């Protein structure tokens, strides 16, 4: 019985909790990608850099607040800087729309042209970020790091295995719940949200109903800015901030959006967790788990790890390819909000 409990704790500690928190970060990222796709009808490859930009601004203001000795006590100072990061990210989104995307939209360019354009935007933002904050790894989480340490848990329960709960994980999960609830409420219940769904559903008919396309596009960028900045900051808070990581994140984020059905907000969220859990479950070494659950005679000799963690991104890429081959519309038949 104790062995069984220990094995459960191992899973919780190394798979479930990290999976939920990484999944939440991907879900928020994928939701942003899906919004752009559903309204503006193109794949925005600059999304990873937009997240990175938001995180960067948040870090800069975190440093500023730290230098002024302003903090939130046990909570990370970054939470205080986050609203400023959000506003900056929204401005970035709107500027890139006004100066770049809008032109191609008015030209009625095909989606693939806009996707290529977004790669250009990605490189520009990427360069700006490197000029401002450099390429090094930055850790900016302060406050109380753990809500529960592995050791505390062991003492508390008397089990062999510890269960650690990082504050960044709990913050990630809480903010995600809050943001997702708000986003879905907005889309389903408010007039503006409904007009966005209508626009995404049938653009011509939306125009005939008097829905202003420029306003819909503006609100889309505001939402994308909020989602991207929060996703980027939470990821940086949980792991660490490094510009190159956000470039790499584009793959699992697009995989999440496509697996769930690109254009479907609910699909993006589900896709985020599917990708996160797949990555973690395929690259986790299960030896410890089996040691507890199997009789000693059957104890595995190797690590029982399907793939090395270096192949993390290969997992999301494989899932992406499989989904595109078998069910290109994704789990929830995406296309519209």
């Amino acid at each position: 019985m104790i062995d069984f409990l220990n094995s459960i704790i191992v899973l919780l500690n190394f798979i479930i909790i990290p999976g939920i928190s990484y999944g939440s970060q991907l879900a928020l990222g994928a939701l942003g990608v899906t919004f752009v796709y559903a309204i503006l009808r193109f794949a925005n490859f600059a999304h990873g850099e937009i997240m990175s930009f938001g995180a960067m601004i948040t870090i800069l203001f975190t440093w500023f607040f730290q230098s002024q000795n302003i903090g939130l006590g046990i909570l990370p100072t970054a939470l205080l800087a986050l609203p400023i990061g959000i506003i900056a990210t929204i401005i970035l989104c709107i500027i890139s729309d006004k100066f770049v995307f809008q032109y191609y939209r008015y030209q009625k360019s095909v989606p693939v042209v806009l996707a290529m354009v977004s790669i250009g935007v990605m490189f520009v933002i990427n360069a700006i970020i490197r000029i401002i904050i450099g390429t090094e790894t930055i850790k900016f989480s302060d406050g109380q790091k753990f809500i529960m340490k592995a050791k505390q848990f062991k003492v508390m329960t008397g089990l062999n295995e510890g269960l650690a709960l990082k504050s960044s994980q709990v913050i990630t999960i809480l903010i995600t719940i809050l943001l997702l609830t708000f986003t879905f409420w907005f889309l389903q219940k408010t007039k503006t949200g409904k007009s966005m769904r209508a626009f995404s559903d049938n653009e011509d008919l939306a125009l005939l109903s008097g829905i202003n396309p420029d306003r819909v596009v503006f609100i889309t960028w505001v939402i994308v800015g909020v989602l991207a900045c929060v996703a980027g900051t939470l990821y940086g808070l949980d792991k660490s901030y490094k510009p190159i990581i956000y470039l790499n994140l584009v793959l699992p984020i697009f995989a999440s959006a496509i697996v769930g059905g690109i254009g479907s907000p609910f699909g993006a969220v589900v896709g985020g967790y599917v990708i996160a859990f797949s990555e973690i479950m395929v690259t986790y070494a299960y030896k410890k788990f089996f040691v507890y659950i199997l009789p000693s005679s059957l104890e595995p000799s190797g690590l029982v790890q399907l793939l090395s963690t270096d192949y993390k991104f290969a997992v999301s890429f494989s899932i992406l390819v499989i989904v595109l081959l078998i069910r290109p519309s994704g789990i929830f038949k995406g296309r519209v909000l």
Partner: protein
Amino acid sequence: MNNLIGKNLTAGYGGVDIIKDINLEVNEGEIVVIVGPNGAGKSTAMKALLGMLSLTSGSVEYSNKEISSMLPQNRINLGLAFVPQTNNVFTGMTVEENLEMGGFLREDDIIHTINDVYDLFPILKEKRNQSAGELSGGQRQQVAFGRALMTKPKILMLDEPTAGVSPIVMDELFSRIIEVRKTGVGILMVEQNAKQALGIADRGYVLVNGKNSREGSGEELLNNPEVRKSFLGG
């Protein structure tokens, strides 16, 4: 009295004029039907009135006001409404949400208008929380019709409202159109089912090859031997 007049309309797509020098008029409280063979430019004429394509020459007037250069959205605001032939509902949204979107520009309480639409189409009340994409063809047309009525239009334009529905549903839709006229709305519609449409029409226009060929009261056109021969099937 509100009326919509197209004077000497010439318009088309990509530099090719499909309608040439067409005159159309619809007044409040009357049903006007545009009939004619395929490719005569019936739908094009209607889209030109709404401003969905730009005019090569001619003008559109609404209640003695020149609106030729106005965007379609702004004409909707004035009191025009349009039901396209296809893709005329938000498939992913519920029936009620479709109606709400129809009333998007309204600042006042739209619940009364929604109820009016439900009174006109009782089936929609039953299906109010179902998504419009799951409805049958006839029910979808009713949603499309109801969505257009949400702005309380003075002039309603219908592009083939009975395309692809059964004869029973067609009769049903026509009787609804008559009911809408009773509320004082002017209705301009393009119809393939010319015989039945002219049967309920106050006036009708016959378009052939993008030109006005004939006009008159519904009855006149129905009884005209030439019109009968050319496309009412004898």
